[in-house]
């Protein structure tokens, strides 16, 4: 019998062009809550997928209770008692909550699914989690936070020995989080071992007994939580002092460029007002589910506003759609760069010029020479690491893909650039490069709205910060007065009340 219920040794996973895990080790003791921390793109998600059998490691070994295992698929991992709560991917939108909770491990007697029992147990689980919805609700009618609760209930219902929670509290209020802490501790006391992934140091210090840090797909260190400081963890995660990453260039801030007043969209956000000026970087932050993305998508014309006014250079505009927005001078770097930002099958060059086809064509006929030189220019400006403009977008790393998306914006003549989580899943080196580009853009006089969940980014880059919570603006701070605590307080403003 080994000391560890789960142990990984020298696990390496390679995706085409990317080394997602590089000789990573990990040890989970029986009955502990173990935090797995690291920046976005550090390899946490891949590690989880290896543990749950979704990905097969290219190298390395996995041991459960000291015995070497070889998962052929997720089923094997489930049989070994491993359950995972993923962030978003696992919901079945058209099915009810009960069906979601029990999908794949229904209560079966004589091969017959026992709906009554399942409903009962689902209701009990939901009650335990203090949920404000019923087990018969359809999944797609729930909010993100509620769906997360369902995912947690699902893992609880599996009664697994090893439970992996991938940022379970990201969208939960303080009360809900506290509730989850209790449940998690109870699970541990009942004998489960838990891997807990979180960005919140609150969670880690409140719950975990040990922590493993990953960075750039590599194992960095392992800490006992007792006796470690937040700063030590951050240093391990980031690998250097934070400040050096944000060389804030001082820029002369000019006139109002974009001003929005009282934007509302039923069920999503209400009464959102803010403004951004020439050369200014405005931070828009909040927790998951604070509807920042929905607000900028409405400004960009992806969705329709129910109420509110948008002014560009003092003139009211009514954006009909993305093309119109771009013609007016508003650009958006979407949150999900693989789904919304890029056509992965296409070469870089064509991706860059897609928004400006009209400018590089005569009477609708594409001028390919012009196209090539334009895209070459822009891609070189943002410093994309690739061989040629014909390389497929899918062959690039996350950071370089993001640079391509930035280059796409530069192709159009814009006044306002909205960046939605531009550094999500980007490695540290590329992050610095992207920060540099953002700074440079501000210097050139663009008005920039930066959406980010990463506090250091907001604190380091922005001239002003607007904080949202559940579809409303709850705070606005100047660069000089802003602090992490103030932002968090406002970001959770309503939740603490509710």
């Amino acid at each position: 019998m080994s000391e560890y219920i789960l142990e990984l040794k020298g696990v390496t996973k390679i995706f085409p062009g990317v080394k997602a895990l590089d000789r990573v080790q990990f040890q989970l003791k029986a009955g502990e809550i173990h935090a797995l921390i690291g920046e976005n793109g550090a390899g946490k998600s891949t590690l989880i997928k290896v543990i749950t059998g979704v990905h097969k490691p290219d190298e390395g070994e996995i041991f459960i209770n000291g015995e070497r295992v070889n998962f052929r698929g997720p089923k094997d991992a489930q049989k070994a008692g491993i359950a995972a709560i993923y962030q978003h991917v696992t919901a079945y939108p058209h099915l009810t909550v009960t069906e979601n909770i029990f999908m794949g491990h229904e209560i079966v007697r004589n091969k017959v699914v026992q709906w009554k029992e399942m409903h009962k147990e689902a209701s009990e689980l939901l009650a335990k989690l203090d949920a404000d919805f019923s087990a018969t609700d359809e999944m797609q009618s729930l909010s993100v936070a509620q769906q997360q609760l369902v995912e947690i209930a699902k893992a609880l219902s599996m009664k697994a020995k090893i439970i992996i929670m991938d940022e379970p509290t990201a969208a939960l209020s303080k009360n809900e989080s506290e509730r989850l802490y209790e449940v998690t501790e109870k699970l541990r006391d009942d004998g489960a071992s838990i891997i807990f992934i979180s960005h919140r140091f609150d969670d880690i210090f409140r719950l975990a007994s040990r922590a493993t840090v990953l960075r750039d797909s590599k194992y960095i260190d392992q800490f006992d939580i007792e006796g470690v400081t937040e700063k030590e963890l951050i240093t391990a995660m980031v690998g250097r002092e934070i400040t050096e990453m944000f060389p804030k260039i001082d820029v002369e801030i000019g006139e109002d460029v974009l001003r929005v007043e009282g934007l509302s969209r039923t069920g999503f956000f209400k009464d959102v007002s803010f403004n951004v000026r020439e050369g200014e970087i405005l931070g828009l932050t909040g927790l998951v589910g604070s509807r920042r993305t929905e607000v900028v998508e409405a400004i960009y014309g992806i969705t329709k506003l129910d109420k509110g006014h948008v002014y560009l250079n003092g003139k009211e505009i009514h954006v009909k759609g993305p093309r119109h927005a771009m013609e007016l001078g508003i650009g958006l770097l979407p949150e999900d760069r693989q789904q919304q930002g890029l056509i992965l099958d296409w070469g870089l060059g064509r991706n860059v010029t897609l928004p400006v086809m009209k400018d590089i064509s005569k009477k609708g006929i594409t001028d390919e020479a012009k196209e090539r030189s334009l895209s070459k220019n822009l891609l070189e400006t943002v410093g994309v690491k690739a061989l040629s403009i014909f390389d497929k977008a899918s062959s690039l790393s996350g950071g370089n893909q993001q640079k391509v998306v930035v280059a796409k914006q530069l192709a159009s003549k814009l006044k306002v650039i909205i960046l939605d989580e531009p550094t999500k899943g980007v490695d540290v080196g590329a992050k610095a490069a992207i920060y540099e580009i953002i700074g440079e853009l501000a210097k050139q006089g663009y008005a920039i709205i930066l959406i980010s969940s990463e506090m250091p980014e907001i604190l380091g880059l922005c001239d002003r910060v607007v904080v949202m919570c559940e579809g409303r603006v709850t705070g606005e701070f100047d660069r000089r007065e802003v602090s992490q605590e103030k932002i968090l307080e406002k970001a959770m403003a309503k939740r603490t009340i509710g």
Partner: protein
Amino acid sequence: MDKINLKKLINAREVSLFIVLILFGIFIQLRNPAFGTPKNINNMLINYSTTMVLAIGMMSVLLIGGIDISIGSILAFAGMVSALVIRDNPDTSVFVAIMIAVIVGGLCGLINGLVIAKGGVPPIIATMGSMNILRGLTYLVANNEWVAAYQINEGFKKFAMSKYLSFGLINNLIFIAFVIALVAYCFLKYTRLGRKIYAVGNNAQAAEISGINISRIKILVYTLMGILAGLSGALWVSLYASAQGDMGMGIEMDVIAACVIGGVSLAGGRGSVVGVLLGAITIAMLGNGLPLIGVSQFSLDAIKGAIIVLTVILNVLLQRQKLKNSLRRREI
């Protein structure tokens, strides 16, 4: 809890479709009293029992986001093979004849499933291909002949007109259709395998992560569709006491229409047996009821097409309203 369920029930698509059907039925009844007679209802259900059986199979295919337009050809091929066996061996029992059709149909479906799941061919293309192949084979295997009534043994001909499966309660074909509906309902709701079909259709990625073998589910579903199409072939031959090479031609459109009217989403993941049954009954009422109220034969298709288009649009509007309501609720 109960209160919520009641509200849900009223909101449910099936109920609104049911109400519309009843109103439609009353409308026809007022124009022609012959419609509502037990005899006519019985006839209608018998004639469209194959459509019901096929629609249930099609639902499971649509649930996983697929489509099968080869069912008319599978029906013909399986039905023809079974009829030929009966012709050449007059003492073939009803059970054996049906089993032959079911096995032939199942094999056709299995090949469809393999081509789609393992060969990576899009369902519409794969089944378009097998639609042509099987129709050609049907003519070839029958050597361009029909199997005539006198060549089919009494037992098999009587099967479609008797009530012995339900001990004299209802016609055999209706009985089979409803038993299959019931089995499908239980299968989809009360077995793990059935749940997996919904999982794959709702979120294939999530299904894969939770360890469901997607290609196995696909193969299973297409095979089931084949089995049901084969069964329908046998029922068809028994009902019409003959087998022609062109039987079931174009029936796939009726069947898909029945599913869509019944609320099955072509994108996968949504659909219920009850809805599909109601959809099939809608198609049956159009086919049986409209001639009764003197709607010209020539207007039937236009009306049918208009109803399909309007139903799917109405469905979208209802869904939107529902979403809006839940968003409004969230606002407070």
